[in-house]
């Protein structure tokens, strides 16, 4: 991790917040643009999940993480609190890794 990453991300993140809340403020954006922006988290978070679960560098693998994330997904689907989802995911992964 580099300071360049930390500081550039800090500047970018704050700029987006100010852009929306103060610069654009109450003006209307084109509805198509607003719809696409609102969909960004769905696309990126889904990609991050499969990347963190199945990727090992540039290889796709099936290991203990998949079991942990599967249990976490069931917990999230059953509307378990965030803490429970994370702890279950980590605990199942650690257990399967110990057994394997």
């Amino acid at each position: 991790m580099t300071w360049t990453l930390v500081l550039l991300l800090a500047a970018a993140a704050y700029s987006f917040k100010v852009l929306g809340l103060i610069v654009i403020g109450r003006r209307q954006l084109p509805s198509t643009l607003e719809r696409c922006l609102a969909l960004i988290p769905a696309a990126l978070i889904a990609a991050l999940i499969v990347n963190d679960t199945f990727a090992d560098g540039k290889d796709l693998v099936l290991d203990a993480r998949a079991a942990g994330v599967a249990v976490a997904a069931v917990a999230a689907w059953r509307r378990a609190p965030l803490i429970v989802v994370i702890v279950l995911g980590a605990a199942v992964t650690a257990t399967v890794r110990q057994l394997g």
Partner: protein
Amino acid sequence: MRPRLRSLRTQISAPEMRPILGASLTIGVAAGVFAIAFGVGAVAAGGTVLQACVMSLLVFTGASQFSAVSIVDSGGSTASALGSAMLLAARNGVYGLTMARHLDGSLGRRLVAAQLTIDETTAMATAQDAPDARRAAFWITGCAIFVCWNLGTLIGALAGEAIDPETYGLDAAFPAGFVAMLAPHLRSRTGRAVAIVGALICLATVPFAPIGVPILCAATAVLIGLRPP
């Protein structure tokens, strides 16, 4: 400032504020636990305790911080980590558009409010019916999360220096957290379609693209939103 402060205090002690206070504290504590996971992960990805803490203070938006650290941890470049974290941070701009209708006051006050404009504060504020309650919910939730998020990061980063993340399955804590963050986006049909296409694009590009870049490629799935609902 004084009358303003007093009016905020009167507002907070009003009976109808109790559910907001309770919910804010719960969200704050949950954010704190999440931040502990972030601190551990940031140190595991080769960051220092100071870098983790500065990131939480200045960036202050969970999904972006997690994604930056997780891409660095899996060996991605600074550019790809920055790219996807910035795309995720862009949604706070959209929350800003929503909150601009509810927040007022001096420019200085709104510049502070901007830093607190994130998923949780927007969700809590827009869940209230009265304008006063919306403002109070925004500020109370924002302050609770800001304090807990930064304390949690410090605790996690210090702990992360002492333990091996893989032994405790902490490498799965990130995707597990992402699963919980994704859930609300799956309620709409378009959200589900975008998530599935995004995941497939990522899987298809992992073997070929540089590490971290598949996450950026997945962003093209939002083009599904071009079609009117």
